[in-house]
């Protein structure tokens, strides 16, 4: 059967944008809308691209969940969640600093060949993600766009 690929984008809302500390959550919970082909369906994550309009080029972890997790803090607070919320986590992908490619004003990072299998929760086609910085970037709201390259199976 022919595979079905899709690129799904999300733009984190950074209500407390500014200078972030290492370990901080960047934005809130983001929805990867329609990531799975059907309820409780599976998807194969091939690639993640981050468009960084602030050209910070900092290492970032992208945490992926099958249900929207309740986080302990808001944007620009330390990333923290209860064990019951962590149980919703399907995995994470690290965006290394070395993966950013610069233009004069902005940058783009891609991690490809990820090959992670994801599965939606019962009754849901969406997945969710949270960004956690591992460095000290400065962002304005809207500076980041994430693109998830998925194969729906």
């Amino acid at each position, binding site marked *: 059967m022919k595979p079905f690929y899709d690129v799904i984008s999300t733009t984190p809302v950074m209500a407390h944008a500014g200078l972030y500390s290492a370990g901080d959550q960047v934005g809130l919970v983001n929805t990867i809308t329609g990531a799975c082909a059907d309820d409780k369906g599976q998807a194969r994550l091939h*690639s993640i*691209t981050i468009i960084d309009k602030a050209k910070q080029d900092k290492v970032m972890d992208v945490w992926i969940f099958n249900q929207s997790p309740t986080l302990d803090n808001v944007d620009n607070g330390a990333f923290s969640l209860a064990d019951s919320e962590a149980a919703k986590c399907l995995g994470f992908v690290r965006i290394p600093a070395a993966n950013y490619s610069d*233009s004069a004003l902005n940058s783009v990072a891609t991690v*490809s060949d990820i090959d992670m299998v994801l599965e939606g929760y019962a009754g849901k086609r969406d997945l969710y993600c949270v960004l956690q910085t591992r460095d000290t970037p400065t962002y304005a709201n809207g500076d980041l766009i994430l693109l998830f390259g998925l194969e729906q199976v």
Partner: protein
Amino acid sequence: MKPFYKVVTATPTLANAGAYLANDQVGAVTKLANIMADSGGRALLKSITFQDLDYNGLAFELWFFGTEPTTVADNAAFSMTDANAAKALGVVFFSDPTNQNTYDDVNNGHAVISCVKSINLVLKAAAGSRDLWMVMVTRDTPTHTDGKLHFLLGLKY
């Protein structure tokens, strides 16, 4: 319907060919016409082979876009507005060791052939279009002539 594969060839146009500085754009924005099988189609970029007939073999990056970006001219510092950067789909590095993929050079005395394999980057055309665009950005100081840079994009649909 079974998946199928295709190799698409692209040759950037170098209107200001010659010596390039690090971070310069090499060539114009290259249109990958009808690279998708369908309007608004998607594909998995599996591999890129780069035929450098100028025999430079230096580090560069390839940016891919879902809609045509406005950037600078050939042989100028690579720059674009945030609105244009937002059209990007991803970037592929032709430089070891920052790329997680294999980077091989085979010097046959006339050209450098570089292969980046197992890329597995999902690409998507804009609604109503089968086209994508790409831009080459050098991170070194090559000397190029027009018509001597060829890319072979290996895609899975």
